[in-house]
């Protein structure tokens, strides 16, 4: 009996590591990604704190009231907000298993994201052209660090979006691609949350007298 047990256990021990389709549970990836987002949140918190401390140190240079064009910021905010809801529509299409609708909404989201990054780059170029470079004052250093980090996140989000659209085009809405799209969904909405902080604390409060 005891010898039977050992012979029965041996192939089991070998086989258990080669079971096909026995992936890690779905939830752990999303929870892990959530923890990454929370750590990213701390990165932004430090940049916000830096801006909060240095944001009024103009070194006799231009202030936010001199530089910021709120109309442009309002358009930028609209771009990011619209991209958030179109990504939501992509997720709803994904839940129904509709590949063309998912791809279409993802493409629209990417275009809104590109518009956001484009407007932000236009703003930066405009500011630098006016002499408001990162070297000009502590206020501008912290401004470019905070807003630039957010813009970089959005840029890489767009890159990730394009890669996932290629994945979906090649393999369809397989569970792996759904998981990846859910992670990007959290990333994208998280960036929108950070932008709320940016437009409130940097732009709106920056132009207050």
């Amino acid at each position, binding site marked *: 009996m005891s010898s039977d047990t050992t012979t029965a256990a041996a192939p089991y021990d070998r086989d258990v590591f080669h079971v096909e389709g026995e992936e890690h549970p779905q*939830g752990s990836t999303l*929870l892990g990604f*959530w923890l990454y987002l929370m750590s990213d949140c701390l990165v932004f918190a430090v940049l916000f*704190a830096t801006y909060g401390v240095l944001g009024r140190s103009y070194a006799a240079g231009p202030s936010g009231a001199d530089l910021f064009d709120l109309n442009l910021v309002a358009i930028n905010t609209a771009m990011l907000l619209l991209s958030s809801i179109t990504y939501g529509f992509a997720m709803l299409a994904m839940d129904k298993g509709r590949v063309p609708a998912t791809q279409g909404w993802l493409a629209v989201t990417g275009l809104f994201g590109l518009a956001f990054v484009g407007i932000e780059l236009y703003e930066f170029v405009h500011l630098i052209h006016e002499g408001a470079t990162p070297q000009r004052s502590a206020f501008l250093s912290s401004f470019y660090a905070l807003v630039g980090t957010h813009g970089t996140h959005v840029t890489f989000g767009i890159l990730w979006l394009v890669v996932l659209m290629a994945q979906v085009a090649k393999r369809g809405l397989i569970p792996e691609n759904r998981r990846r799209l*859910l992670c990007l969904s959290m990333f994208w909405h998280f960036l929108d949350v950070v932008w*709320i902080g940016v437009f*409130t604390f940097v732009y*709106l409060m920056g132009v*207050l007298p």
Partner: protein
Amino acid sequence: MSGSTTRDNHGHGHGGHHGHGAHHGDAHGDAHGDAMGHGTLRDYLIGFLLSVILTAVAFWLVMYNVLGKTNLTAIAIMALAAAQIIVHMIYFLHMNTKSEGGWTMLAAIFTIVVVVITLSGSLWVMYHLNTNMMPGHLLDLR
């Protein structure tokens, strides 16, 4: 004996999981009932509407100087931002106390505590440093 029992249990569990994946592959996350990133059309539309209103009000208050006083406007737009962040977390990120057995909420609360300490601590310390290190203040002491 125990080995074969474990194998049976494992085999059963694996079979069940695999069957679930094969039949409900499209609803893998939904099956657990607590997956993140899932919402309804209604959720997204409510969230979007609330966000648009909160954003528009914040810009309106500042661009047209509706309240007149700087401090009042600052407090108002900070309150609007806090409300909008909560709206985004509920309607876009679909946060609730049950997802992932409460761990996402716990991680979020921990992060918020650290963020508040970082922000308020930095501003507090640096403000006092600026105030107390001013030459004028040292002259007053003489």
